[in-house]
């Protein structure tokens, strides 16, 4: 059938396609607007291919079950939104320190608290980084289209499997619920990474072997009997009180991300080469920004867009380069100023940084960006 792989899909539907493409075979979730479609569709699709779907009793249990499933060898997913994401922070920290690969989709809605469930927001940018207590590695991806939700969900699984760490996909309700024509990739078209499995003798297996930055992870039930804990632990997974090992444990989980930033980072640049005015934003807001850049260019105003698809770890290098180049940077975001702080930190006074913020459940319109830039240039 010609064009059988072209589909008109909603963002959350594309997320499911991405997850299944990546080999997701477990979903544990809890209903929450505006992410529920992901659970609903996976409850139908997973059993068709032998996968497992479970609706847990709450948000905490959802990620708990996902971690359990991942330890049993599955590629596991959960999906949520603001309030649920808050509840998941406890298990998220566990997945970080115990180095359990899993993917968390957060379709961002207005907050704080129950806030505005059906309205778009980008209010969890900082929660994705700092939500769980303690220093921990944060990897969060920010797709801006339905097609990208698919590809970035695949990338989220890949990064999580490769680095044995939870990966968050953040997108706002606008792209979660909008419909766009997309192409479902053929098998083999996109890279799919599976976690490394141990090759050593079973009795020699160390789940946190210091000889690796990311040690292979054995699935439960295959003869590698080991211990997993949320306490600081040594190479064999057992808790320790030795300050040297505690430091190494805490630093290594950061290092595996820090030392691989180039692999994890992904940015799109629009007319940035000769830009005199920079825009930095993600998700639906980046769509307005792209429109604004094109409109401004038509008027001879040299605006450019830096759009990270990986918001955490933060694209320091790209932002620094932009800050050194442009007169000022505009950071439109659907919150009262979260990413802007990071842009200011990296820019460190190299240029002025201006925010455009909205928390009224409406999207940022291109004219808001255009007007501010024209006024300020």
């Amino acid at each position, binding site marked *: 059938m010609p064009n059988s792989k072209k589909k008109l899909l909603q963002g959350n539907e594309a997320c499911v396609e991405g997850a299944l493409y990546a080999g997701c075979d477990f979903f544990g979730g809890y209903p929450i607007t505006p992410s529920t479609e992901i659970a609903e569709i996976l409850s139908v699709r997973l059993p068709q291919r032998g996968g497992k779907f479970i609706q847990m009793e709450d948000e*905490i249990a959802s990620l*708990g079950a996902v971690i359990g499933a991942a330890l049993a060898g599955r590629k596991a997913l959960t999906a949520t939104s603001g309030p649920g994401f808050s509840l998941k922070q*406890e298990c998220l920290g566990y997945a970080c320190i115990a180095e359990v690969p899993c993917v968390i989709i957060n379709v961002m809605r207005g907050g704080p608290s129950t806030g505005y469930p059906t309205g778009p927001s980008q209010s969890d940018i900082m929660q994705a980084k700092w939500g769980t207590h303690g220093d921990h590695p944060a990897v969060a991806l920010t797709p801006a289209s339905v097609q990208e939700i698919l590809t970035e969900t695949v990338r989220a699984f890949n990064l999580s499997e490769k680095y044995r760490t939870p990966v968050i996909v953040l997108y706002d309700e606008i792209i979660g619920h909008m419909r766009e024509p997309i192409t479902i990739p053929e098998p083999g078209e996109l890279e799919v990474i599976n976690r490394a499995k141990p090759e050593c003798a079973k009795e020699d297996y160390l789940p946190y072997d210091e000889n690796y930055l990311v040690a292979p992870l054995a699935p439960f039930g295959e003869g590698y009997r080991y211990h997993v804990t949320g306490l600081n632990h040594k190479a064999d997974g057992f808790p320790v009180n030795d300050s040297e090992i505690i430091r190494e444990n805490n630093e290594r989980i950061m290092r595996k991300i820090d030392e691989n930033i180039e692999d994890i980072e992904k940015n799109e640049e629009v007319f940035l080469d000769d830009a005199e005015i920079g825009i930095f934003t993600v998700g639906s807001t980046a769509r307005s920004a792209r429109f604004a850049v094109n409109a401004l260019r038509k008027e001879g105003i040299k605006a450019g867009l830096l759009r990270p698809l990986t918001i955490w770890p933060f694209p320091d290098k790209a932002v620094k380069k932009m800050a050194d180049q442009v007169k000022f940077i505009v950071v439109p975001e659907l919150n009262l100023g979260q990413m802007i702080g990071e842009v200011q930190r990296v820019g460190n006074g190299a240029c002025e940084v201006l925010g455009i913020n909205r928390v009224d459940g409406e999207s940022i319109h291109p004219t808001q960006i255009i007007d501010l830039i024209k006024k300020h240039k």
Partner: protein
Amino acid sequence: MAVPAAKQRLSVPFDYDKYLRPGKLPHIWCPGCGHGIVLKSLLRAIDKIGWEKDNLCMVSGIGCSSRTTGYVDCNTVHSLHGRAFAFATGIKFSKPELNTIVISGDGDAMAIGGNHFIHLCRRNIDITVLVYSNAIYGMTGGQYSPTTPAGSYATTSRYGNIEPPFDPCEMAKAAGATFVARSTAYHTKELEKILLQALEHKGTSVVDIIDSCPIYYGRMNKFKSASHMMNGLEKDGTITVAQAAKLTPEEIGGRQLRGILHQAERPEYCENYDNIIVKQATATKGA
């Protein structure tokens, strides 16, 4: 004279080392704590049922009892406070062939993990849950728990606990667990037998194990020693279902019942789900 075969068997000490991780002892539990005794009964029950260590998974939460998982040589997870039930559900559901046991305490199972506990029971997923019930938060230094009897003392109930306790067995039964039993750390042989039945049971089995924390609960409630406490709470404070059947409620008094308190047959969660998978796979093929 030849020793009769039965006697010979009795004289061979049980090889606990077979199930314990080398180099992980001594355990962290205080002298007089019941947790080690419970673990021994559990290991004997596991041996009797003959489960391979490779296919055995133990998941615990947080607390003194939850440290058990570190000592047992199998697939072990020391999870989060109260969340062992959720982690274990994910593991068991992913790999039903893994024999899965949850080790928790009264704070873990009845307070912070209460919601997960009841839903695990409701699903009737084939997991055995051990609740080490010592009516106190030992790890944090002796605060009252949801099973602390009213009137008892703890570091957060200095004027006497005004809250009524939960009965984990009633809770498990009401929530849908299909095997519910109680024993104590004092009744080691009985506990072993009950645990074996719990392990053998298909579906959610819950065993509430009355256990002593002499260090906190004992000291705060004027028990002179660990043995005094065991005798008072576990031996004299309980009565078997069979014994109780012959007595009036007045005669039973405040004693807790030991033995199998509830048993039912209901479809098991993973098997139920597997039926969907088979049906769906056939339906998709046919389409």
